[in-house]
Structures are given as structure tokens and as C-alpha cells.
């Protein structure tokens, strides 16, 4: 006998994901606390939040809904609905990245470059790193979607989809936190 199936509720891969998320949280905790420390020092420059970031927030929130719905469809074996919703989630993810990019461009055109060490420069780094995590999510999403379309074997395990959706909700919540943080701490 190897495992006591009943009492070990959490699947090891899911568990690994949770620990990884804690690790990512620490990275952003490091950056946001650096931001707080710096914002209390002389020569701190504030920056206007680009309006695109509000749109992108709505988009990523929507994508959380779609992936949640996709997961439910998967569990109900509604495979065509599942595929559609996953694809929509992916498109929303790309839209999010695109909106962030437009926001960055707007900042850059309004004179917020890499020169200095104010809110603007932190914003590039913090939102940029967050964007990288979303990009990673999109890549994973593409893998999961491809599997759903061309997979040779029918997979009945919902674990990969659950892991995918947990991660996706995580980058969503992370963005909400960062966004509120960037608005409040000036």
C-alpha cells in the first residue's frame, strides 16, 4: 500500500501549484514593499494610471468567469461548450495583455520613461512582471485547449483543467491587488 487515498485530499500537482503561487506572491510582496519604502522617500514621482488599465481589469475579471464556467462544463462533460469557453478565456487573456501594452505606450508617450525611480518605473516592472505571468498562463491555456481539440485520448480527469483555472484566477486576483495598490499608494 502506498497512499491513504481518503485522507490526502489534495492532489500533489495541485498542491505544488499552491506552493508556487505562494512563491509568486512573495516576489510581488518584495516589489510592492520596495514601492512603499521608496514612495516615502524624497524625489518620489507619481504617475497617472492609464485608462486602459481599467478596461483590462474588466477583461481579466470576465476571463475568470469564463474559465470557471469552462471548468463546470468540463465536469458536466459538455465538451463543445468547454472548448468554446476555454478559447474565449484565451482571447480575453490576449486582450488583457494588449490593453496593458497600450497603457504602457500611453505612459511612455506622456514622458514616463525608464529614467528615474518613481511610481512609473515601478509600474512598468510590476505590471510587466504580472503580464509575463499572464502570458505564461496563456501558453498553458493554449496547451490545454489544443489537447481538448486534438487529444488522441479522451481525458476524464479534471485535474489539469482545475490547475489551469486556479492559476488563472490567481493572476486575476493578483492583478486586482496590484491595481488597487497602485491606485491607493501614490
Amino acid at each position, binding site marked *: 500500500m502506498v497512499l491513504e487515498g481518503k485522507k490526502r485530499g489534495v492532489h*500533489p500537482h495541485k498542491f*505544488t501549484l499552491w506552493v508556487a503561487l505562494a*512563491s509568486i506572491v512573495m516576489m510581488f510582496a518584495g516589489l510592492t514593499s*520596495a514601492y512603499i519604502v521608496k514612495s516615502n522617500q*524624497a524625489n518620489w514621482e507619481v504617475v497617472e494610471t492609464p485608462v486602459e488599465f481599467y478596461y483590462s481589469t474588466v477583461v481579466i475579471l470576465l476571463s475568470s468567469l469564463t474559465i470557471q464556467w469552462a471548468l463546470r462544463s468540463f465536469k458536466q462533460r459538455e465538451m463543445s461548450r468547454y472548448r468554446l469557453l476555454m478559447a474565449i478565456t484565451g482571447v480575453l487573456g490576449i486582450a488583457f495583455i494588449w490593453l496593458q501594452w497600450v497603457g504602457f505606450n500611453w505612459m511612455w508617450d506622456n514622458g514616463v*520613461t525608464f*529614467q528615474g525611480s518613481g511610481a512609473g518605473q515601478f509600474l512598468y516592472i510590476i505590471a510587466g512582471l504580472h503580464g509575463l505571468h499572464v502570458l505564461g498562463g496563456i501558453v498553458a491555456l493554449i496547451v490545454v485547449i489544443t489537447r481538448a481539440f486534438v487529444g488522441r485520448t479522451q481525458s476524464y480527469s479534471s485535474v489539469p483543467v482545475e490547475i489551469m483555472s486556479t492559476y488563472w484566477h490567481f493572476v486575476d486576483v493578483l492583478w486586482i491587488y496590484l491595481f488597487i495598490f497602485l491606485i491607493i499608494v501614490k
Partner: protein
Amino acid sequence: MNQESNNTVRPEVHVTHDGHHVEHDHGHGHHKETFITKYIFSQDHKTIAKQFLISGMIWAVVGGLMSVLFRLQLGYPDQSFEILETFFGRWAEGGQIKPEFYYALITMHGTILVFFVLTGGLSGTFANLLIPLQVGARDMASPLMNMLSYWFFFIASVIMMSSLFVQTGPASGGWTSYPPLSALGQASEGSKVGMDLWLLSMAMFIVSSLLGGLNYIATILNMRTKGMSMTRMPLTMWALFFTAILGVLSFPVLLSGAILLLFDRNLGTSFYLSDIYVKGQIMPNEGGSAILYQHLFWFLGHPEVYIIILPAMGLVSEVMSVNARKPIFGYMAMVGSLFAIAILAFLVWAHHMFVSGMSPFLGSFFVLLTLLIAIPSAIKVFNWITTIWRGNLRLNPQMLFAIGFVSMFISGGLTGIFLGNSTIDIHIHDTYFVIAHFHIVMGVAAFFGMFCGVYHWFPKMYGRYMNSTLGYIHFWGTLIGAYLIFWPMHYMGLAGVPRRYMDFRGWTSFNQFGELNKFISIVTIVVFAVQLLFIFNFFYSIWKGRKVRSMNPYGANTLEWTTPIRPGHGNWVGEIPEVHRWAYDYSKDGREFIPQTEPVSPNETKH
């Protein structure tokens, strides 16, 4: 059949993996392993452990040799040595190390030993080797991630190694890489390409640690065999578990610090830079704070020193109990103190910054928290000593190294208390006192833990024993040598001799230490030679050592000794054993040892 039940419990995890081993275990392997999959891109945790160990040993020789060579310069500043020119070429023209290169050497020495040997080499080896074997799992939660963890370590190693050969030399801002030295290419030769390579290599190293750490945590929490409750785990498991948690939570913060530094270096931001003149020229950077980097660095840096020492503590606890033929004293106190140390490790980082311009009021909190670490540390020391107290000691090399570890940990821990008081630290910060403190408590102690582990588990890794006579010479040479090298440095530090200086001849007040410096350098050479003896012993024994004839040569209780003498991928032939008791039933009810797999009989006494 365990694989079947396994498959029903966790279909996706084991299908591909254990599925193969069903056949494998029963001896008609239709799944062939090539040399490449078996020794190079292996996903077997035991092979990965050996890869980490041997890579770590190569690094240890490189990093150790550096210290021997710069000690030559330090001990004999007015002589020239051909060997220095042979090794360093134009960096040591005429047999004397150039001042900039001296910085590069100490930077690389620190980086290599702290990260590549005592973090990668130590955790990488023993977490990989022991976690699946001691919790009773066929492999890690994700063998693939585990393999990637080694290969990221390998890439990091290649990058760091290559930085030794670039035109402008490797990074030279100290292992802590404080800006502005590390942020401005103009600041020194080593701040140019060498620094970028350093950062890149560290980024790869961080990825490696995270992949490894995630796996260690998931395996310990999720993959334990039946009956192996958390509190039945050997202390090695607890130590490696807390180590992994520390790493997973603190390395990302270093990563964010490094990202800001990369921006400052290459994209013109000034997070860490303000009001700087380089060679009479004022830099455009404004508004940054160098202290910000120190906070981010030491938020990792301090947990990092515990990442190094906790695995050593775990190994020592296990080896001590086995070789004293006594249960470990105060098992729960040992676990509790590991936990306390892990928590406190996150709350004391600013004790490295008492003289960086931090508010003294804030400093006093960090003094208090720092001194609190003495409590769990003392508990551990007390328990180790009590464990060997009146034990039936087998003084083999691994046991000697375990005892030596405790000695080093006491000596170095006591000087930590001096340093932890900010008022004293103002005087001895950045002097040889600090060098002595951390080399004893971290450097030598962690090496002792590692040696203790290597001697003890060598039979499990290679099916042969290491030579004990060479082991005794290795132990006594290292113990005596290490004290001779580092003990006198305390006095130098109290007298104010600063660290990171190449030549003290300009200070009349430090002239009194000239002879002492020579002495230290000579002992360093001897101790280094003794380590080469260990390396010889290691490789010689892999092929020529005495063969292990029994599955459980030490009469130990833990699960790794229930596997075949040379376990295959999957560790156990047939079912994974079930666990019925903790790992420390030694000398109980008139029996010398009772393995964890033995059911508790009704008339057994309680522990």
C-alpha cells in the same frame, strides 16, 4: 499490488511513471534505459542527487582553490608567486594579484561556496537522495521538474563559470552585490559583463531552487507511505521541509531585487542610484536608494544562511541518533525549534544593516528578534548533546563529523550573539570578526553536516563504503585546521582589521598580525590538501571501496535501509513498506534497534 491501488488513487500521476516500473521491478524490463536517460537526463531522484553532489564537489574545489590562492597573497603581500600568474594570467602579472582581481576572487569565492556548494550542492544532494527514500515514495512528486531543477543549476553553473573567463573579469562587488558598485558598469571592471553574467546565473539558480523546493514540499506533504504521519518522519525530513519553505518564500524576493538591479544597470532606471560621482563625473541617476537593495537582498540573505544550515542540522540529528544507538532527545522540541528558526529567519534580516544608516530605534527591534534565535539554537544544541550523553557511541567518521558540527555551531553561534547587539556590531561590522563568525557557524559547520551525510549515505548511493582511515585523517585535519584558521580571526576583528582588504602593510597598528596572517595561510593550504584526500577517497571508493553486504549496514530504523543495496528507479521491489512507528526506537526494550516498518507489539513500552 501497490501499483494498482496507487493507480486508482492517483491515476494521472503514476500511470506513465510507475506503470513502467511494474515491469521493471519484476525483472523483465521492456523499457530500456540508455546511458543518456540513466546517467544524464535522468529523472531518478537518486541519480539527480549524485549529479548535484558531484557538481557541488567540483565547485567546492574551484571555490576552495580560490581562497588558497588569495590567502597566499594575504599572507605574503611582499612576495610574488609564480603559481598565481599560472592560474590568473594577466590578473596576477609578476605573481602578485591585482587589487581589482582580489575583489573578483573573494566575490566568486563567496558566491560559489554559499550558493553553488552549500545550497545547490548540499540541499540538492540530500533532499533528492533522502526525501523519497525516507518518506517512502517511488520518486518525487514531479520527477520531470526535479530533473529540470538540476539542469537549471547546471546552466547557472556554466554561466557563472564562464564569467571567470571574460575579458573584464567576473563580478567583483562582493557576494552580496551591493549597488552602486554592482549597478554602474563604469564603477569597476567587474561591474561590467561579469556582473550581468552573475545576475543571469543567479536568476537561473533561483529557478532551480524554486523547482526543487516546490517538489520537496509537495513530496513530503503528499507522497508519504502508509503510516508515515508527519511526526513519524525522521528529523532529516523536517529539516529539509523547512529548508524548502524558506527557499520558496525568500528566493523570489531576491529575484525581484535582482530585476530592479538589472533595470538600473541596463535600462537607465535609478531604483538604487542617487547622487553618484564616478571618476569625477556626476551620474544622471537620481532618487534611488542603495539601502533598498540591502533590504531586498538580506530578506533572502538571512533565510539563505538557514537554508544552508538546516539540512546540515537534519543530517546530523539522524546520524547522531543512529550512531549513539539512542533515540534523538526531544524529537518534538527539535521540530519546534526548526520551526521557530524558520519563522525568525524572516524577521531578522536588518541585523546585517545596523551600520547602513538604518534608524537605531528600528535597529533595537532587530536586536531583540536576532537574540531570540539563540533560544531555539540552544535547544537544538542541548538536545544533540543529550542524545550522545551516555550513548553507546560508534565513533566512525560520520559520527565525528556530526559531533564536530555541534562544536562549530556552538562556537559560531556564540559570536553571533556579539554581532546581534547593534552597539557591539558598530565596532566589529565588516571586520574579520564577522568573517570568523560566519565561516565557523555556516561555512565549516555546513561542510561538516555535508561530510557527515556523505560518509553515512555513501553506501546507499554507491553500494560501497568509504575508507575510514582516510575519513579520520580528513576529520581531524579539518577540525583542527578550521579552528586554527578562523579562531584567530576573532582577535583580528576585535582589533579592527577590516574584511575585503588585500594589503594591510599601510596600517602600523595591524602590523602585529603579519605573522598570524602567514600562519593562517599555511594552515589553509594544509586543510585544502586534506579536502583533496576526501575527494580521492570519494572517487576511489565508488569503484574500489569495500562492498556493502547487508541491506541495513548500520542497524538503522529509517526506510532507506529497507530498499535493496543498490535500489533501482522506483526504490522498492514490490510494495512500499508500511510504517508503524517513529524513526528513533533505538535501545528499546532490550533491543538495539526496531525498524520503522515493524508493527508495535502490544507489550512494548511507550516512548
